[in-house]
């Protein structure tokens, strides 16, 4: 194992709050109804293939990818489609969802439900990409970029690094951590599958320091696989950002407006890699994922294996429900997640956590005057100057935004977190990005 690596620009050390590190992944059970959104990824919504009254099984294709930047959607339960219409989502907006009334738990016969680990990869690279496409796999780290596009790399851009992102730098979340501990071998085989697609032999599993169990398990198992190595990274936020991770591990930097592939790297979240393993070896499309239910106002936090489309409220109910302390319900991590308007909104392929946060944690202190301390400049992992962006946006000087490189902002929230004057710097950066896009 080589020295601990980390990225060189900026970063913060928020309180970890990893209270669910040692709670094993449990099955969340089946709700009465599931609501499966047809758009759980970046790109075009999938085309709906079912209609009211249709019977579906677990794993039945219910919506088909519309174009290249899109992903298939499968039913996560067996039962009857009762509604195909717009339902209020997480932010209160209406989203097209397929409602399925749960009856029993019957899987598509092609799915291999056995627990044994299959090691031999019987497919060619082309076949694997096709399987990944048909399994509807998207980047499960949060961005939701359809995975097959990432895998089908042009020949001249063959990457020399495959990095598995096992860094969960967001406080509270432990879904990937548990997955790495409990499904270590599967993840490594998943990495070998991607290796086969890319035609390279190595894979680096990046894990941050505060996951000793995952590091140990994966290091032990990786000894049996040629080319798979574990790289420990420092516990620092946003270590799990794609660009930060690439810099930490390879020393390369992705130039603005370029993709990781342009510097010879391919980064995959470990959750995605596990989904790839299941799709290729077990013929199981992506219809469930590990979700951390946690937060300081959560009575019984834990890690759950949840079917896509399960209402968040169903999951929250199992963890002690909403108490009076709960001030905010956050989908995703506390740094980059979104606060939900509607807790009946379904878990999607991208939901890594449901957090119940109390007022003591979220605080929302009043904004005071900027004291020019420069802490936002010090912590920005992209080397931007958030205070300058905020000033330009506040005063309406939108033409200054381009030279300030606001488009490079990764919205990690370090600046807002650290600001002693509690200025919502990230809000201004987001607004700046919006204005920049509008002026183009």
């Amino acid at each position, binding site marked *: 194992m080589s020295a601990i690596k980390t990225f060189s*620009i900026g970063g913060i050390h*928020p*309180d970890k709050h990893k209270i669910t590190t040692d709670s094993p992944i449990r099955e969340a059970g089946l709700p009465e109804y599931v609501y499966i959104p047809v758009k759980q990824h970046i790109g075009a919504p999938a085309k709906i293939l079912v209609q009211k009254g249709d019977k579906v099984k677990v794993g039945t294709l219910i919506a088909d990818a519309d174009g290249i930047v899109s992903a298939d959607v499968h039913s996560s339960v067996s039962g009857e489609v009762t509604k195909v219409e717009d339902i209020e989502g997480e932010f209160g907006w209406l989203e097209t969802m397929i409602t399925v009334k749960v009856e029993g738990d019957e899987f598509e016969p092609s799915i291999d439900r056995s627990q044994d680990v299959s090691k031999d990869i019987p497919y060619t690279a082309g076949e694997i990409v096709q399987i990944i496409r048909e399994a509807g796999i998207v980047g499960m780290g949060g961005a939701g970029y359809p995975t097959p596009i990432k895998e089908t790399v042009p020949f001249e851009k063959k990457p020399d690094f495959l990095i598995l992102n096992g860094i969960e730098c967001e*406080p509270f979340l432990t879904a990937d951590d548990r997955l790495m501990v409990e499904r270590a071998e599967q993840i490594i085989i998943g990495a070998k599958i991607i290796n086969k697609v890319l035609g390279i032999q190595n894979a680096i599993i990046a894990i941050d320091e505060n996951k000793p169990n995952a590091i140990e398990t994966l290091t032990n198992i990786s000894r049996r696989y040629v080319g798979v190595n574990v790289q420990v990274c420092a516990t620092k936020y946003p270590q799990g950002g794609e*660009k930060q991770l690439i*810099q930490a591990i390879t020393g390369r*930097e*992705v*130039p*603005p407006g*370029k993709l990781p592939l342009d510097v010879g790297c391919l980064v995959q979240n470990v959750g995605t890699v596990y989904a790839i393993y299941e799709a290729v070896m077990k013929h199981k499309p992506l219809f469930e994922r590990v979700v951390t239910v946690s937060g300081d106002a959560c009575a019984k936090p834990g890690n759950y294996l949840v079917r896509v489309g399960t209402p968040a409220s169903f999951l929250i109910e199992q963890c002690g429900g909403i108490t009076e302390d709960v*001030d*905010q*319900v*956050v989908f995703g991590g*506390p*740094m*980059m997640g*979104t*606060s939900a*308007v509607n*807790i009946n909104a379904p878990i999607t392929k991208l939901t890594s956590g449901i*957090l119940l*946060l109390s007022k003591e*944690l*979220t*605080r*929302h*202190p009043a904004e*005071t*005057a*900027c*004291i*020019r*301390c*420069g802490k936002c*400049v*010090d912590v*920005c*992992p*992209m*080397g*931007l*100057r958030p*205070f300058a962006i905020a000033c330009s946006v506040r005063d309406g000087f939108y033409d200054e935004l381009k030279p300030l*490189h606001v488009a*490079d902002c990764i*919205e990690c*929230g370090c600046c*807002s*977190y*650290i*600001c*002693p*004057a*509690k200025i*919502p710097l*990230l*809000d201004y950066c*987001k607004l700046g990005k919006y204005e920049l896009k509008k002026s183009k």
Partner: protein
Amino acid sequence: MFTISTAPHMNSPVTTQTLMRDVIIALMPAAIVAVLIFGIGALKVMLTAVAGCVLFEYLVSKYLLHRGNTVTDNSAIITGLLLAFNLPSSMPIWMILVGCFMAIVVTKMAFGGLGKNLFNPALVGRVFLFISFPVQMTHWPKPSFADFLNTDVQTGATVLGILKHVDVQSSATALSNQGASLADLPTYTEMFLGYMGGSLGEVSALALLLGLAYMLKRNVITWHIPFFYLATVFVVTCVFWLVTGNIKYDPLTHLLSGGLMLGAIFMATDYVTSPMSTNGKIFFAICCGLLTVIIRLYGSYPEGVSFAILIMNAFVPLIDKIFVPRIYGTGRK
């Protein structure tokens, strides 16, 4: 109903108020040393200056700017303490209040309050007093350890005052017109601990370094400005000293005497009036160091720290424009 807010949903417990509180704590060792060495007079000066600054800040923010009470951010207390640290313990009260007025009303609030001022308020207050009342401002009571009730004003020159009047050619024999000679120079240990004449807060390097250690530990400031400031002064005087062999250029004396430690640790690092990026801070500190040495050695005043920092304060907006951090993915290799 739940609260909806934009990400991030957590924020650091450090606020402007706690940062300022940490700076006050860091100033405490120097304050204690000042009382120990200069007696009750030091306490009087500090209390007057803090009370004056807080009062002016309160009055202006409430009745002129109609902004409510901004005293709670603790910044006025720091300005008051720093101003007091720059004054001799025999300063008359009304003069201290004039200094507070210059610092808070003219330098800080007139520019729009905390975060908007171009110059360090405490330094402007000090320089204003220094130019207006040169006699009182250079009337340094002699140190008398733990002799609180001693109120006789026995005065002597500061270390830099003595050095200033030492003739370059015949350093050993020259006597200054203040009647002080090289024989009056305190030893290095005395200088380090603070047993020498001077302004309240600047005498003890040890106490100031303790404050620096606390601020570094609490992440209040980064090490760049103090380090590069002190290093520049040390290196430049060292060069002079090695070349000429004249005690006037003794680097250790320069490092330990005068307001250098106080300036480098507490004044130049003031958030509002120092650059934001790391490279900018380094450039700022080096320039401060060079100016300090130039003023000390070639200027008409024995001390140059306050002028050096104020001059560099004026360049901070420019430095912030020029020294920007490297953006990820650009400009390397």
